[in-house]
């Protein structure tokens, strides 16, 4: 990151309004994303998805957000009007979600779905060019733009194909930042690497920024450049992906080493000390 980073966040706080007053869910998070692959990792409830949603301007209304700095390509997003967000979303920042079959419109064909994304940002584009762009983006994500694929509905696609279509919809307008929120956790293990490999190559080829949200550190090590570790709404560690095996924070170390494998046969896996959080809430 030599020039202005794509995304710059300083001291981001997201709070829920409750009867007892505001309760912070994300607290003082700061990070930058340039044309690189940054992974945001942590357990469920650590605030990583909320952070990503804030970047898309998609926080639920019940939550409030504050930040010292919250800018995309130098443009302040804090006071952005809904129209501003609409021109940004899809065009500049795109989001790939966990379950493609839920994210895709169930009654739209693949062709219509990609076409809709094009229309939103390029109204009045000639029909031939629209189909050319659709075909090209499908090839980019490894799908042959045959009639069978173009006319398929979401339920006729396998999980892997559906996620490729989702990615095509997201990339077709050439965004500069891609947010991928657990893009492979709804997929079979064997497909996960394929889909991430695809996301990773596309991001690199297009010189985009990637914010990859995941709870699988092994995956992140292979497909990320930098890693931000979140726990209970706070950033606890920031390190290079290649240094993950030597992380210093105990939370990161546990997340790294708790994956089962043939080597851990009949042994106990390291677990997190939960005495401070959820458990005490119940007891």
């Amino acid at each position, binding site marked *: 990151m030599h020039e202005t980073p794509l995304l710059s966040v300083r001291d981001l706080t997201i709070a829920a309004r409750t009867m007892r007053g505001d309760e912070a869910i994300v607290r003082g998070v700061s990070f930058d994303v340039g044309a690189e692959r940054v992974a945001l990792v942590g*357990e*469920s*409830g650590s605030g990583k998805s909320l952070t990503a949603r804030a970047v898309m301007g998609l926080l639920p209304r019940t939550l409030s957000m504050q930040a010292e700095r919250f800018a995309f390509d130098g443009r302040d997003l804090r006071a952005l009007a809904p129209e501003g967000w609409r021109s940004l979303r899809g065009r500049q920042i795109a989001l790939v979600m966990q379950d493609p079959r839920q994210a895709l419109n169930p009654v739209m064909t693949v062709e219509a779905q990609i076409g809709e994304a094009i229309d939103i940002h390029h109204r009045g584009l000639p029909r031939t060019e629209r189909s050319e762009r659709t075909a090209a983006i499908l090839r980019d994500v490894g799908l042959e733009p045959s009639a069978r694929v173009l006319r398929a509905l979401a339920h006729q696609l396998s*999980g892997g194909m559906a996620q490729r279509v989702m990615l095509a919809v997201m990339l077709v307008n050439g965004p500069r930042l891609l947010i991928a929120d657990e893009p492979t956790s709804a997929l*079979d*293990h*064997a497909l996960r690497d394929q889909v991430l490999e695809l996301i990773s190559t596309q991001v690199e080829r297009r010189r985009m920024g990637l914010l990859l949200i995941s*709870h*699988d*550190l092994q995956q992140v090590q292979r497909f990320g450049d930098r890693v931000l570790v979140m726990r209970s709404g706070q950033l606890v560690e920031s390190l290079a992906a290649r240094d993950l095996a030597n992380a210093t924070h105990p939370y990161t170390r*546990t*997340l790294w080493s*708790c*994956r*089962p*494998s*043939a080597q*851990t*046969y*009949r042994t*106990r*896996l*390291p*677990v*997190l000390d939960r005495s401070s959080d*959820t*458990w005490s809430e*119940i*007891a």
Partner: protein
Amino acid sequence: MITGTPAGPPASAVAITGLRVEQPGAPHPVIDRLDLTVGAGEAFGLFGPSGCGKSTLLRVLVGLHPYWRGGISILGEAVTPRTPLHAGVRRDVQMVFQDPYGSLHPLHRIRRSLQEPLQINGIEDTDGRIHRALEEVGLPRAVLERYPHQLSGGQRQRVAIARALSMRPRLLLLDEPTSALDVSVQAEILNLILSVRETYAPALLFVSHDWDAIAHLCDRAALMAGGRIHRLLQRADLEQPLPETLAP
């Protein structure tokens, strides 16, 4: 149907020969010509892609899927299609599902979910059994007064395991018990399953599409594809990384 000699523990927890399972209305059988034996106290993994029939196999064993033919014997007792398991065996076979939210009644407090199987089976000292099971899975007694939606995914899966454990099963069927969970919570549940093995030594039939989880937990495993067992794997095979050619 009670056959064989009651004396001594059965050598196998599950013995299946020539199993064919159908889905009414579907053109092809879900499972065809499947043979499988799981020893008493053995941890056996079933690995394969979505739709290969691994979850269906568990549903057949627990009596949730009646459309099958072939020979099945569970804990030494022969099973007949469309006939409930003999009460004793029924109690000895317990199942934990992938989605604990779907397997706990949303309007029942945890206490009721845990009490029901004990009462149905006429087990006395329900409170004692429930408290013991909660201790084993590391949950405080306060969860008894909670509803499923008030618990985290990992806590709900612990409740589901506590419910299965309270019956002291000799065969535990685990259908992707960790795939809806974070890796960190998965580690906790896998540790819990290991403790269950050490304490009660039930036979485990563990369905997963996570090769590493199977390699971590199982003594033997089978690769399933298209409703058949594609390859049987011994412990030594599980020590090897999954060959590309076998990946589902």
